[in-house]
C-alpha cells in the first residue's frame, strides 16, 4: 500500500479516536451527573456503568447514524474518479470538527459534536464538489431534528413528570401511592427501553429477532422487573416518617433506583448516536483505503464501531470522572423524581433519532427535558437564557466548522 495512504489512514484513526475520547470525556455528565449529584451512585460506579452502556449503545446501534455521516451528507459517488480527494475531504472534516470541539470545550460553549461534524462535512462537500454535492434534503431533515428533538424531550419530560405528580404527590398518602405506582413505572420503563432497543437493532449487523419474539421477550422481562420492584419497594424501610419532608425524602429515595436505570438508558442512547461523529468519517476513509476505490454499497466494519465505543469509554474513564464530579455538585436541584423524568425522555428521544439515522445532541435534548419539567413546576427557577445560548452556538458551529473543514481540505490538497 502507498505510504501516504498509511499515513492518512493512521492519522484519521488517531483523530477519530481523539474525537471519541472527547465525546466520552465531556458528555458522560449528561447521563450520570444527576445520579452522582443525588448520591445514588459513586463516581466510580457511574464511570463503570456509563462505560458499559455507552459501549453497548455504540456497538449495537451506532451504525445508523454512522451511515448518515459516512454517505448521507456528501455523496461519495461524485468522487469515484479521484477517491483520494474524498479521503482528504473526510480527514479535513474530522480534523475541523476535532479542532472546533476542543476550542468550544475549553471555553465551555454549549456546542454539539454532531453539529460540528455535520457542518464540517458541508464545508468539505461544497468546496470539493460544489453546492450540489451536499444532500440539502438530508441537511434540512437533520436541522429539523436539532430543533424538534429538544422540544420532543421537553414535551415528553413534562408529561412523565405530570404523571408522577398526579399519581404520587397529589394523593392523600404519597408514600403509599409510591409503593403502588412503582411496579407500573418499572414495567413501563423496562418495556419501553427493551422495545426501543429491539426496534433499533433492525438493519444492523447483529441478528435481529422478529417482532412477536421481541414483544414476548420485552413483556416477560418487564413483568419480572415489575414484580421484583414490587417486592423491593414493599421491603424498603423508609425509617421515621413524622414530617412531610420525611415522606418526600423516602419517595425520592425509592426513585433513585429507577433513576439509575434511566441513566444507563441515556448512556446507551448517547453511545448509539454520538459514536458516529467520530467514526463516520473514519469509516468513509477506511473503505476507500481498503478497496482503493469508492464502492457503491458501503458497510461499516464492526471493528470501527468498537474502536469508537472504546474511545468514548477511555474518555470517560480518564477525564469524565472530573466532569461528572463537578456537574454532580451543580445539578443537585434535580432530585431523583425529576432526574428520572428528564433522563427517560432524553434517552427515548435520542434513541429514536439514532434509529432514524439523525445525529442529534444529547445535551440539548436533556436541556429541553429539564425545561419541560420546569414548566410542570417541577424545578424552580429555570433559566431560559440557555435556549438563546444554545441557538447561538449551533448557528455559529455549522459555518465555523464548515469554513475550517474547507480551509483544511484546500491545504491538504495543496500539500499532497
Amino acid at each position: 500500500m502507498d505510504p501516504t495512504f498509511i499515513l492518512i489512514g493512521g492519522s484519521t484513526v488517531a483523530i477519530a479516536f481523539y474525537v471519541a475520547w472527547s465525546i466520552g470525556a465531556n458528555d458522560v455528565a449528561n447521563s450520570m451527573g444527576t445520579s452522582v449529584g443525588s448520591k445514588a451512585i459513586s463516581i466510580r460506579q457511574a464511570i463503570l456503568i456509563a462505560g458499559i452502556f455507552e459501549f453497548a449503545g455504540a456497538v449495537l446501534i451506532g451504525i445508523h447514524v454512522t451511515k448518515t455521516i459516512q454517505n448521507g451528507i456528501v455523496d461519495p459517488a461524485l468522487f469515484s474518479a479521484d477517491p483520494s480527494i474524498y479521503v482528504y475531504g473526510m480527514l479535513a472534516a474530522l480534523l475541523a470538527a476535532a479542532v472546533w470541539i476542543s476550542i468550544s470545550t475549553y471555553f465551555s460553549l454549549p456546542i454539539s459534536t454532531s453539529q460540528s461534524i455535520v457542518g464540517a462535512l458541508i464545508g468539505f462537500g461544497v468546496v470539493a464538489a460544489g453546492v450540489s454535492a451536499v444532500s440539502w434534503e438530508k441537511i434540512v431533515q437533520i436541522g429539523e431534528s436539532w430543533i424538534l428533538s429538544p422540544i420532543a424531550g421537553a414535551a415528553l419530560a413534562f408529561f412523565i413528570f405530570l404523571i408522577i405528580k398526579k399519581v404520587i404527590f397529589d394523593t392523600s398518602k404519597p408514600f403509599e401511592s409510591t409503593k403502588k405506582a412503582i411496579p407500573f413505572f418499572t414495567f413501563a420503563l423496562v418495556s419501553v427501553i427493551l422495545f426501543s432497543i429491539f426496534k433499533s437493532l433492525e438493519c444492523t449487523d447483529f441478528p435481529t429477532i422478529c417482532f412477536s419474539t421481541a414483544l414476548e421477550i420485552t413483556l416477560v422481562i418487564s413483568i419480572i422487573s415489575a414484580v421484583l420492584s414490587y417486592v423491593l419497594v414493599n421491603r424498603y424501610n423508609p425509617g421515621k416518617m413524622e414530617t412531610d419532608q420525611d415522606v418526600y425524602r423516602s419517595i425520592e429515595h425509592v426513585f433513585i433506583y429507577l433513576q439509575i436505570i434511566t441513566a444507563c438508558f441515556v448512556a446507551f442512547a448517547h453511545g448509539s448516536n454520538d459514536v458516529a461523529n467520530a467514526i463516520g468519517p473514519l469509516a468513509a476513509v477506511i473503505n476507500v483505503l481498503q478497496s482503493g476505490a469508492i464502492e457503491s454499497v458501503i458497510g461499516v466494519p464492526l471493528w470501527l464501531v468498537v474502536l469508537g465505543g472504546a474511545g468514548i469509554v477511555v474518555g470517560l474513564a480518564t477525564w469524565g470522572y472530573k466532569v461528572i464530579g463537578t456537574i454532580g455538585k451543580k445539578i443537585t436541584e434535580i432530585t431523583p423524581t425529576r432526574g428520572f423524568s428528564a433522563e427517560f425522555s432524553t434517552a427515548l428521544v435520542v434513541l429514536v433519532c439514532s434509529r432514524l439515522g439523525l445525529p442529534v445532541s444529547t445535551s440539548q435534548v436533556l436541556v429541553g427535558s429539564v425545561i419541560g419539567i420546569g414548566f410542570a413546576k417541577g424545578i424552580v427557577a429555570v433559566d431560559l437564557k440557555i435556549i438563546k445560548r444554545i441557538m447561538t452556538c449551533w448557528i455559529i458551529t455549522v459555518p465555523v466548522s464548515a469554513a475550517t473543514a474547507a480551509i483544511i481540505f484546500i491545504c491538504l490538497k495543496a500539500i499532497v
Partner: protein
Amino acid sequence: MGEKLEEKDHFRAPVADTFRRKSPFSQLLEHMGKVRECIDILGDGLVGYYKGDYKDFPVLAKKVSEIEHEADLIKSNLRNHLPNSLFMPVDKGKFMWALREQDAILDHAENLVRMLDMRHTKIPKELQDVFINHAKLVMKTVEAMEDAVCNIRDLVETSFVKREREQTKQFIYKVHEFEWKADKAKYEATKGIYKFEKKLDPMDVYHLLKIADWVDDIADHAENVADWLRAMIAK
C-alpha cells in the same frame, strides 16, 4: 453564565446552566432563618426591657443590627439574580413582595431596638402585663408566619399540589388570627396609656405610644408576608 463565582470549567454541560443553582425559595427560607433569629432575641429582650432591665439591651440592639445586615445581603443577592429569562413556578413579582415584606420585619425590628436603646422609657407597673402580652402575641404572629413560609419546602418538592397549598393556607389563617389578637392587645395597651396620661411625663406618653405602635408594625408586616404568600400560591 450562571453565577460567576467558581473557576472556569473546561467542558460543555449546558444542563448545569439550565436552572439557578441556588433556588430562590431556599434563599427566601435562609432569609426567614434570619428573621427567626432576630425575633427570638427580640422577644426575650422586649420582656426584659418592659420589666425595667436595660443592662443587656445595648448588646441586643447591636446583635439585631448585625442580623438585619446579614439578611440584607441575602435579600440583595436574591434580588440581583432574578433576570427576566428566569422561569419560576410562581409569579416573580409576588415572590419579591413576600421577600420585601419579610425584610421589612427586620427593618422595623432594627428601628425599634435603636429607639428603645436611645431612651430607656420606663413602663408603668400597671401597664407591664399588657405590654408583655402584646409583645408575645406579635412574636407569635411572626412564628406562625414562619410556619407558613417553611411549608414552601413541601410545595416545591411536590410541585405545588393542592394538598400542600391547602396546608399553607391553614398556616396563613393562623397568622391572621395572631395578628388580630396582637391588634387587640395593642388597643388595650394604648387605652392603658391614656388612662394613666395624667400621672405620666408627656415625653413618656409619647414614647409609650410609639413603642406600642412600632412593636405592632412587626405583626402587620408578618401578616403582609402571609398575604403575599397566599397570592403567590393561588391558582
